[in-house]
Structure formats: C-alpha cells, structure tokens
C-alpha cells in the first residue's frame, strides 16, 4: 500500500512539473517548490486524518478482545454464550438471555421499521406532492436528531404506562423496546431508501407506465427492485443502530436477565448489561462485561459481513 502511494505521488509530481515548464523560467523554481510543499503537506494531513479512523477501530478491537477473551476462557465459551443465568453475586455469568433480548428487540424493530420506513420513502419519492414532502422531510430529520436518552425518557413516562394499562405487567417490556427502536431507526431507513429510489433512472418508470403498468405496479415491480441495494443498505444501518442502542433501551426494557416468552416480558440487551453494571464491576464480573462486548462485536461483524454480501449481490443484479 505504501509503495502504491509513493508511485502515485511520483506520477503526480511529474505531471505538475510538466504543467509548469512553460512558465517564466526565472520565477519557476521557488514558486514550484513552495507549491509542492503545500501539496505534500495537505496530502499528508488528509492521509493522517484517514489513519485516525483505522487506528481507532484497531485499538478498540484489540482492547475489547484482550480484556474480554480471558473471561470467556475462565467461564467457558459454552457456559458463557448459552448459560441462562446471569448472577454476578454468585459468579454465574451466562448471557444467553441477553443475546436473545438483543436479537428479539432488533428483529422486532426491523420487522416493523423497515416496511414502515420504505413505505414512507416511496410516499415521499413517488406519491407525495412536493409541498407535503417538504413538510415530512424536516420532521424525519428532526427525529434523527433527538438524543436517545430523550427517546428513553419519553418511553418510560408515556409508552411504558400505556402498555402497563393495556396489558399489565409493569409495561417495561420487549414491546416497549421494539416501539422505541422502531422510531429510532425510521429516519435512517427513510433517508437512505428514499435516496436509493430517487436514484432509479426516470426512464425505468416511464417505460413501465408506457407498457400499461399502474403506478403501484411500477413502484413494486420496477422501482423497488432497481433500488434494492440501497434499501438493503438502509436495513443494515437500521440493524446497526438498533442493536447498538443502549440508553433508551435501559429505560424501557426492564432489564431482567431472562429469556422473554411474550412481547410484554422484560428483556435485557447485551448493551444494557454492559452499561448498567460496568460502574461497579470488578474482577471476573468486569471481565465478563468486556466479554459481553466481545460477543456483541462478533455479532455486529457477522451481521455486516452477511448483509454486505447481500447488498453487493443485489447491486450486481441490478
């Protein structure tokens, strides 16, 4: 990689040298050197900025694995991942209920949020008159800007008592988490899939309409398939946001480390587990929380890998 950067730089230098040859010969040397110095300086600055992200990812990954993997070794991978009991006071660390909790909340939010978000995107890109979409867009952008703790607090004082009133059981539940997460991932899904839909060439739709297809048929049979890779990218981003969300979920999910059997059961997610107990934990308990981070990390990596492949394939097809 370093070598290719060097060759690139050489070619670049040569090109700019040639461009200057026709200039005033007396003034040329000094000016040229000065400009080249600025060029190099900024090129290095950009490169340095780009490195920060890579270094940060590497540092975080190494840190999590170094602090978490020993605990998995001590507890045992099987006992840790499939253990059904989380009881730090008795040194029992099983995160299976938390894995299920994270998957159930994220899955539920995707199940509701993706169709809702894609439909909103279709409405805004295809159906709504400009005046109406000019009203909806800022509303959705505002939704994206609300801090997660505010979502959580709203959930705790409005949503949770509502669920408690209708179904009982306290209201802190998987359902509450799903509703909150659905609202939180909506902006991402709407924005990304709307951009994808608008990027579909106009001729596709016109061709479809010319062949006698109705507007709705055109949307479902032509536009969405053509925008598939963008919509999938929206789903990936939505899952990432939902599975990583912590603060809002802590406030509404009830945080009981048990496998939920119903929508009204309380759940604890992996992120909530880490965030709630990190403040006090020490020894094996603390290591087990880092280990929870390792499992979460593995999940997100696997998810990204699978969905990346899917989006690529979808992109190739269209």
């Amino acid at each position, binding site marked *: 990689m370093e070598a290719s950067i060097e060759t690139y730089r050489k070619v670049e230098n040569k090109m700019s040298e040639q461009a200057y040859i026709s200039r005033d010969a007396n003034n040329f040397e000094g000016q040229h050197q000065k400009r080249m110095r600025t060029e190099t300086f900024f090129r290095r600055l950009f490169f340095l900025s780009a490195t920060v992200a890579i270094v940060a990812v590497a540092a975080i990954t190494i840190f999590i694995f170094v602090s978490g993997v020993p605990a998995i070794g001590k507890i045992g991978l099987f006992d840790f991942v499939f253990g059904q009991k989380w009881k*730090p*006071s008795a040194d029992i660390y099983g995160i299976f209920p938390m894995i299920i909790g994270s998957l159930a909340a994220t899955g539920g939010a995707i199940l509701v949020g993706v169709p809702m978000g894609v439909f909103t995107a279709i409405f805004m890109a295809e159906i709504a008159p400009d005046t109406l979409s000019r009203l909806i867009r800022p509303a959705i952008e505002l939704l994206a800007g609300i801090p997660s703790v505010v979502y959580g607090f709203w959930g705790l004082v409005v949503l949770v008592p509502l669920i408690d009133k209708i179904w009982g*059981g*306290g209201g802190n539940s998987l359902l509450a988490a799903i509703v909150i997460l659905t609202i939180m991932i909506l902006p991402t899904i709407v924005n990304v899939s709307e951009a994808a839909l608008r990027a579909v060439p106009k001729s596709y739709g016109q061709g479809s309409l010319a062949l006698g297809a109705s507007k709705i048929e055109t949307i479902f049979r032509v536009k969405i398939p053509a925008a598939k890779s963008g919509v999938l990218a929206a789903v990936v981003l939505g899952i990432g946001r939902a599975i990583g969300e912590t603060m809002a979920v802590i406030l509404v999910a*009830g*945080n009981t*480390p*048990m496998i939920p059997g119903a929508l009204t059961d309380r759940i604890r997610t992996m992120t909530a587990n880490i965030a*709630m107990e990190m403040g*006090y934990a020490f020894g094996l308990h603390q290591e087990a929380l880092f280990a929870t981070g390792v499992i979460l990390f593995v999940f997100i990596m696997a998810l990204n890998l699978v969905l990346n492949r899917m989006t690529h394939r979808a992109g190739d097809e269209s």
Partner: protein
Amino acid sequence: MKKRVSGLLVIVMAVLLFAGCAAEAAPAAAESAGGAALSGTLSVAGSTTVAPPAQALADAFEARYPETRIDVQGIGSSAGMKMLNEGGCEIGMASRELKQKELDWGLESIAIAYDGIAVVVHPSNGVSDLTKEEIQKIFMGEITNWSEVGGINKEILVVSREDGSGTRGAFEEILKLEGDEGSMVIESALIAEGNGAVKANIASKSQAIGYISLGIVDETVKALQVDGAEVTVANIKSGAYGVSRPLNMATKGEMSELAKTYLDFVMSPEGQKIVAEHYIPVVD
C-alpha cells in the same frame, strides 16, 4: 514619588510578615492541643461503604496535621475486622453491627454514621406498613400479590437495582437476601439503573415496590413504614426503623495517640459535617 513607593513596600512586607506569623500559629496551637507534635501513619481498613467518608475525613485530618498519613483501604467489613484483630490495621470499618465472634476477639466499635434505605411504593398503594419479613418475602418472590399483605388483588412488581450497586448490597444484607447462591432477589425483578430510575419506575406503576436512598425520597413515591416505624432520621438513629444500618469504626485494645485523635476528629462537629455529606451523622 520614590519615597511613596518604598513606603508602600514596607507596608506590604509588614502585612506579609504578619500573615506568615498567623499561618504558623495554627499548627502550633494544634500541636499543643495534641500534647506533642502528631506524626506517623495510621492504617484504616474495612467496609467499602464506610471508606468514602473515612477517606474524606482522612484528607481533612491530614490537612490539619501535615506530619501524619492516614491510609484508608476499602476491603469489606469482615475482612476489615479480621485485619484489625490480626494487627494489620489500627482502625477497622464495618457497615454493620459487630458479630459476637468479633466482640469475643476484644474489638470495640463506635457508630460514626447511619445509612437508611427507604422501601417505596406507588402513592396510590393502600399498603403503608410492612414487616421486615414481609419485605424479604416479597423480594424473594414468596409473596406475589398485594392482597397477601393487606392490599388490593394485584400482582406485585419487584423493582431492584443492578448487580454491584451499593444500595442493593446494603438492602440485601439488611433483609438477609444474600444466600450461598448469591443474591436471593427474585430473578424476574425489574432492574432499574440508579436511584432515580427506580423512583421513576415506582412513580409510574401502581403495583411496584422498590428501595431507594433516604435522601431522594419525594412526593412522587410513598415510603413505607417498616415494622410500624416511619423512615425518618430520628427513627434510623434510634434503631426503630429496621432497614438501616450503623456505620462503625472499630478498635482493639489501647489506641495510639494518632488513632485516638483521628477518632475524636471523626466524632467532632467538624468531622460529622464531613460524614453528613455521605450519610446520616451521629452527632448533629
């Protein structure tokens, strides 16, 4: 002009000189109060609950007697008492009464503060008095309906704190909710992060019961009487309110001059003011 400047200088120097004398006078007075110059190292070890005020007290003490060093270690009440008995430290800290075994070792304790925990329910809850045993059974999941303790027919929702929380630790210790298998609080309990989140949950759920620090009780929740005693500072001090515990400092045998002065400082009005930043002081 020059004269005026030098005159000013003299005044400034004089003021500085007097300030210096005043600053020196204070420790001299303290020394004379302690008999001889107080110096040396004092080791204080025990409860992690008592450690924060003990450390704050140590900092203030060291500021007054610069020749001394107070080492505060939070290692747990039982470990602290054991260390004290074996001579590893001169003052032990315990967030509970001393056990008979420890008294038999010849340890003597003095309460430096009290720590109270309020058991709270929704203001609309008809129940306003529970016994310690009833509370214990509710949190263990043996009593599951409010009608079993004189309330309406509604399932009880237990709200607890995250594992490792000091308030949870104290609550479980006082109500004997700690078994060989760790915490005995019902597994399906709602877990809220922090005193504030517990309060918010209780305030919005008519069937919930939880526990919070005495200091943050307000009108959004109802604090229960325990064994007929209301949760007040007076009842905690007298021992009438059961969900509380004394925070003790313990010694063994003859104390050194330094240990004695430190304990006197802890019990002095100034020391108790520092204690009050963390817990309920013994002396007002």
